[in-house]
């Protein structure tokens, strides 16, 4: 649980992007890829910050929903 997380590699981001494009039926012009991958890197960094923080198992997610 204390092992530091590593950032995905460029190749892993490329793979994830291709998978998402296929899964969601998206089209992404090759000219767009560099910018998309750059955004993925920033998002991944933000997610890593969150994932590295130890949270108790009792913490419920906090989206908003009232039945």
């Amino acid at each position, binding site marked *: 649980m204390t092992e530091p997380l590593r950032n995905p590699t460029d190749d892993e981001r490329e793979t994830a992007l291709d998978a*998402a494009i296929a899964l969601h039926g998206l*089209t*992404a012009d090759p000219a767009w890829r560099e910018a998309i991958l750059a955004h993925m890197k920033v*998002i991944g960094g933000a997610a890593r910050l969150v994932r590295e923080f130890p949270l*108790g198992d009792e913490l*419920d997610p906090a*989206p908003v929903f*009232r039945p």
Partner: protein
Amino acid sequence: MNTPADNLVTASAAEIAAAVSSGDVTARGVIDATLARIGDVNPTVNAFTDVLAARARAKANAIDGSRGKGQGPLAGVPFAVKNLIDVAGIPTRAGSKINRENPPPSRDAALVRRLEAAGAVLVGALNMGEYAYDFTGENVHDGPSRNPHAIDHMTGGSSGGSGAAVAAGLVPLALGSDTNGSIRVPSALCGVFGLKPTFGRLSRTGSFPFVSSLDHLGPLARSVGDLALAYDAMQGPDAEDPVASERDPEPVTPMLETGCRDLRIAVAGGYFARQAETEALEAVAMAAKALGARRTVEIPEAARARAAAYVITAAEGAALHLDRLRLRARDFDPAVRDRLIAGATIPALWVIQAQRFRRWFHGKMMALFEEVDVILAPATPCRAPRIGQVDFTLDGTAMPIRPNMGIFTQPISFIGLPVVAAPVWPDGGLPLGVQIIAAPWHEDRALRVARALEQAGIARAPVAALGESARQAGPVFAPRRDLAHSRRG
């Protein structure tokens, strides 16, 4: 006191309403003058995407016809709304090319209806960053809104047209939306007051969403009193909005002049002091000094809160737009499209973890609000960049402006805290904003502190002295134009 008959450009919403109610001017006179001003100045600032002259004149005539029957606290006050807010009869473009092809809504958004029920008069819809995924105020389809205090500079986004319209004196009151800072950033850069209420306080019915778990609507104005008047007129439950609070309205206007000596006010340190330019911190220091606030507090894990909001935003935004990305990707603003496609790659567990962190952060902040009532923090790390500028350097690190102008606003809206953005002018340059942050459901405290800063002359929102190009575009209001419609003229 300035009245509309003296100078409609600088008149506040309260002054206009008082003058209309007393019969010093007619609502029609106010609206005709407002429409003329928009026609003259809007080509310079590009705040409006839709001007609703016929509708506004008809509404003004109706107000004038109801004289003596209770015209409402905002009688005759012109206002405009960010173009993601529904206006019957015109497409809700949400800053996009795609959505303007949609059929127009058949009724106004809830907040438009509430403001008009209080006597205000809708005069148009306002420019914004595409789908609200923006902190610049630039828009590839409609052109950038321009900062009235320096027209080659950004307004900030995504409610850029709202900030520009109020700062340019086109309307005294505008509505915007704020998911991660989109009311507070343009308020700061354009030098106006903005209120992002507690999450769920104001109805979102009839507005185009961005990130449902973070979206807020709220007013921008040139005075704290006007913010409060508008906010009071818009409060109340709405069964059509699933996140709207069931709380009864809690009017703040009667409390504005009660001062803030009973409030424990502190300055946010750490994260909020590290990444800002000197002037942004100076603006906060000026506010703190005026308020006698000497304590510094650490907002716990603010960088992580911002990161979590960033992840949730990217994922929810992508989910909202997935079909449009699939079918119409080339019709997006490229800067928005590429971020949204990146968001479509996010694993679900990252989002769930971010939402679990949100719970943790909320708990810590509620504990902090046991110790203090109000926290001051910069609204933006710097003044308005130039239009077209892509990157800036914060704390020695170069980074893109579009996602990072909101580094100080994003951790606060993450848990829906109420905030007033107060415009401060630390020197002769462009304005900066100070966030006045309160505990949930305590908009009154943030507004009372903002009012104290306004009274002390620290926070102010003057109508921009538009440059030569704007003056050539048209004169400021002449009193005679308005008096021609005066009931007593």
